[in-house]
Every structure is written in structure tokens, then in C-alpha cells.
């Protein structure tokens, strides 16, 4: 568990994700806004009409380093942001379950929304993470891919 005073909490975990502890952690006395984003497993994809689960693979140390870099980039761009939590699931995630959580707290809502959007958009392009789609009769790597780029290029 990360201390309440820390501005950053990043995690890569095979355990189910829950927003509640992240919101509790991010809520600070000087912050009037806590914005959350939850990415969830959808029942279809570009390639498959029926998707039952996603399965994520990563290199945990490299993924954690990149998540930390995203949080640092948030602090440079939105210095008022007081807390950034970025948690990503690995392994098999069932339909409807969260795959990724972004929580941003700041004194006012505008920078919390902007920073939250920046976090999820940047995460998708900079974090070493690969997903397989499970569907009736098999599984395959997602075709919704992008070449990995450095955080500072985003």
C-alpha cells in the first residue's frame, strides 16, 4: 500500500481491480475533484463478434517503469494534480471486469479530466502490454495495436 501523501500509485496485478481503494487514496483535503476512468472487457472487438475474456501479458518491471513515467509527465504538465493512480490487470480478465483503472485528483475538475484523458491515451501507446481476445472456439492476439513509443513523445 502506498502512503496517502505519495502523489503516485502504480500497479500491475493479476488480482481483480477495484476503484474504491484508489478513490479513497486519491481523495485529498486540497482536492475538489477526483476523476476516474475504468477500462472494461467488452463483448466484441474489431475482429470478433463475441469476446468472452481478455488475457494480458507484460513485463512487470518495464510496465511499472512506464506507468511511473506517465505519472511524472502528468505532474510536469498539470502541476496542480495531487494524486495519480494507474493500475493495470494482467492475466485473464472476464467480460465486464475492469482491465485498467486511472484515478486523478486535483483542486479543480478541468485539470483532473485533462490529466485523466492523457493518462489512458498515453498508457495505450507507451506501456508494454499485449492482449489476447478469447472468443468461442479459440483466442488470438488483438489486432488493435500501436508501435510502442516513449512517454515524452506523446
Amino acid at each position, binding site marked *: 500500500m502506498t502512503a496517502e501523501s505519495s502523489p503516485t500509485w502504480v500497479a500491475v496485478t493479476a488480482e481483480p481491480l477495484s476503484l474504491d481503494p484508489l478513490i479513497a487514496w486519491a481523495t485529498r483535503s486540497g482536492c475538489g475533484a477526483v476523476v476516474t476512468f475504468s477500462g472494461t472487457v467488452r463483448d466484441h472487438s474489431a475482429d470478433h463478434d463475441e469476446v468472452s475474456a481478455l488475457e*494480458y*501479458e507484460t513485463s512487470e518491471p518495464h510496465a511499472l517503469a512506464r506507468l511511473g513515467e506517465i505519472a511524472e509527465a502528468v505532474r510536469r504538465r498539470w502541476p496542480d494534480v495531487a494524486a495519480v493512480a494507474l493500475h493495470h490487470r494482467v492475466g485473464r480478465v472476464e467480460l465486464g471486469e475492469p482491465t485498467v483503472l486511472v484515478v486523478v485528483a486535483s483542486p479543480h475538475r478541468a485539470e483532473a479530466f485533462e490529466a485523466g484523458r492523457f493518462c489512458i491515451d498515453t498508457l495505450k501507446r507507451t506501456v508494454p*502490454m499485449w492482449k489476447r481476445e478469447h472468443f468461442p472456439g479459440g483466442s488470438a492476439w488483438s489486432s488493435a495495436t500501436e*508501435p510502442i513509443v516513449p512517454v515524452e513523445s506523446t
Partner: protein
Amino acid sequence: MARLLLLGPAREAAGVREDDVAGDSVEAVLAAARARYGEHFAAVLAVSQVWVNGEPAGPASPVAPYDEVAVLPPVSGG
């Protein structure tokens, strides 16, 4: 020997996640990897990024013994 780290589709194409490969540059390590794992891996490698010890690297980047050479196909997180 460099430590090769193959991730996602690169891991699947090669059939291994980690391996030891000789070579003193990224180019040399990857040539050895292509020879070892075959055409399917080479096709994945062709569209992948390569990191040495967590930093983006090019074909001419030097590789020392125990360096980690990671192959990162296009990503699909989130």
C-alpha cells in the same frame, strides 16, 4: 551472452520468453534470434521495437554480456 526477453506475440512466435543469445550489437543478437526461431518470429520482429536494458535501441546499439535485449511487438494495453 545477452539475455533475450520476448514479449507477447514475439514470445509466442519464438516459443520462449527468455533465452541467452550471443552477439555484441542489437543487430547481431537479433540475427542470431532469427536463425534460432525461424520465419514466423522474424516476421514479428520486423514490426517490433527493441529495448536494451529498458531503453529504446537501434540495430547498431552495443550489447554487453548480461544486457537485456527486449523485443516489443506493437502494444495493445488498456
